[in-house]
């Protein structure tokens, strides 16, 4: 029983990280119908930015997090304005080719600047040990992750449900033409949402360094998992992303623990089963 709780907790922690990074991708795909395969690259740059801030400027880990969110979000907004906007009406293939090319370029730039190896990160010692609650050992960092994402998800959920911006967002996801028709500035909405989504993924990338590691292949390595979360959860849905991320996170960790020979395959098996049962995603809207 104790091991089950431990494994579940690890899975939830991993899932929280996936959720944080994948949420932006889900909203982009649901809201703008834009296949953004460069999403992993934004997360990766968030990680590298965090490492650079800590190492070069000596900023503490906690302080880098809001900085990374703002800088990567701003970068996302700029790239959306300058590059992505031209491709909203393009075919899905063009979008895929463009964003994958962007990912390769980012990976190569990261290799050039930081080198091909894993980036070591010096977390504050307060976050780097285990505590024992009710007889089970919990990693403090993973506890921090889960807590952080729970609070964030609650705030985002409230934001989407209770604010005007949230209402406009929901309207634009449901029916962009009608939303534009009632005077919502859909392109401004796109930019702000894209910036928020990439900011969140950058933040996720920084938080992920200790759990997933960080090297220039990060963007492509984990892209599959982000896409899994979006597809299984249903594009454009916050609840969907959260549910899918948690489910897939637990499936992955539990699979590796209980069936190590098949370990890495379990997450794909879970995806197949979930998609067969929910073809449009857990909370996806029928197209």
């Amino acid at each position, binding site marked *: 029983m104790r*091991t089950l709780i*431990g*494994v579940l907790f*690890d899975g939830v922690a991993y899932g929280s990280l996936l959720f944080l990074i994948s949420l932006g991708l889900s909203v982009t795909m649901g809201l703008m119908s834009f296949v953004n395969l460069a999403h992993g690259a934004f997360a990766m740059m968030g990680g590298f930015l965090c490492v650079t801030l800590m190492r070069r400027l000596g900023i503490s880990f906690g302080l880098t997090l809001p900085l990374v969110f703002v800088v990567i979000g701003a970068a996302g907004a700029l790239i959306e304005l300058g590059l992505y906007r031209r491709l909203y009406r393009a075919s899905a293939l063009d979008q895929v080719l463009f964003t994958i090319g962007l990912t390769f370029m980012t990976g190569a730039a990261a*290799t050039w600047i930081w*080198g*091909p*190896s*894993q980036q*070591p990160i010096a977390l504050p010692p307060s976050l*780097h*040990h*285990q505590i024992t609650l009710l007889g089970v*050992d919990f*990693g403090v*960092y993973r506890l921090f992750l889960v807590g952080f994402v729970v609070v964030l998800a609650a705030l985002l959920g409230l934001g989407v449900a209770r604010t005007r911006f949230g209402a406009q967002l929901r309207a634009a996801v449901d029916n962009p033409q009608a939303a534009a028709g009632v005077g919502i500035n859909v392109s401004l909405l796109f930019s702000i949402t894209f910036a928020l989504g990439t900011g969140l993924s950058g933040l996720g990338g920084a938080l992920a360094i200790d*759990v*997933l*590691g960080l*090297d220039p*292949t990060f963007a492509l*390595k984990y892209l599959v998992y982000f896409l899994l979360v979006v597809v299984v959860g249903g594009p454009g849905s916050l609840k969907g992303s959260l549910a899918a991320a948690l489910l897939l996170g637990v499936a992955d*960790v*539990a699979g*590796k*623990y209980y069936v*190590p*020979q098949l*370990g*890495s395959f379990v997450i794909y098996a879970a995806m197949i089963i979930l998609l067969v049962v929910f073809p449009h995603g857990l909370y996806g809207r029928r197209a």
Partner: protein
Amino acid sequence: MSFTRSGLLVASLLCLATTRAHADDTIKVGLILESSGPFASQARQIANGAKAYVKAHGDTVAGKKIELVFKDVGGPAPDVAKRLAQELVTRDKVQFLGGFVLTPNALAVAPVATQAKVPTIIMNAATSIITAKSPYIVRVSFTLSQVAAPLAEWAAKNNIKHVYTLVSDYGPGNDAETTFKTVFTAHGGEIVGSVKVPLKNPDFSPFIQRIKDAKPEAVFVFVPAGDASVGFMKAFAERGLDKAGIKLIGTGDLTDDDVLTAMGDPALGVISTHHYSAAHESPENAAFKKVYAEVAGAGVRPNFMAVGGWDGMHLIYDVVQKLGGNVDGDKAMAFIKSGVTIQSPRGTISIDPATRDVVQDVYVRKVQKVGGQLYNIEFDKVAHVKDPGKS
């Protein structure tokens, strides 16, 4: 044809003629290395080791100039490795192939070596079966079986009765696990569990949790040297396995000199077995480290991969010298099989004429702090170990 056109034709034919004449004075060595991607740092060690040897001994042997041609295979990519080997042999006309951090790439090149009759020097890839795949392959590095067997003996003799094994799921990992299990159980030990982790981006946490719950006395680990060993060390310390009283033992890949400093204090006290430690005390090693620093930069520590590159070039130079500069694949292999001994920075090594694999001393080491830095300090050794994996 106009005058200028025919003039151009004659000029280009002349150029071809002169290049061919120039080529006869150069012996090209094609090095296939995983220079981009997660094994880049290891590939760089091999490259620098090879370059250091050329720097220390000059680039001329028996009147011929030695030229190194580097090709990047990017990671575990056997189809790319094979294509690069074919290009090196047909286009660049290399007379030796070498390099190979990873086993899958070395295995893919074997048929090319056989068909082209090009001596292929394995400077790292450590699975036993590689040398059997082509009569033109010779290895100067090590095999996992060769270093895992002494570790299993040491563990059995030092009061460790229950061991859990964790290895990466590919050739060398399978060799390490099989040899360790065989030797350890033969000496009366018990394997309480085994797990194989995927080679590409493994997340060690769930596997380590499993080990913690099994409560062995020690865990035997093989993961490829570099990022994987750092990742493992970090997860090991984070889950508190050392505090739970579980000893960590492994092949020297775990405490690789290239990343040992990055691992930090959690690595202290780890017992490993390997064929080379940067802290090895010998005049050859001191000389090697000095030249290496000139090539790689001061403060870059050479590891066993660098020694593989260095000794690989040593063997190539010996072959060229012996054949008077006229390298023929079959004659080269005949010389290699006549019993070659090399004074390596790691100690004395020799090539087994029957298997074309390396025979060397294997050291038992402990990670200790020397002068504020972590090193693998040798405290015991097993002499003249042949690869037990060849049976």
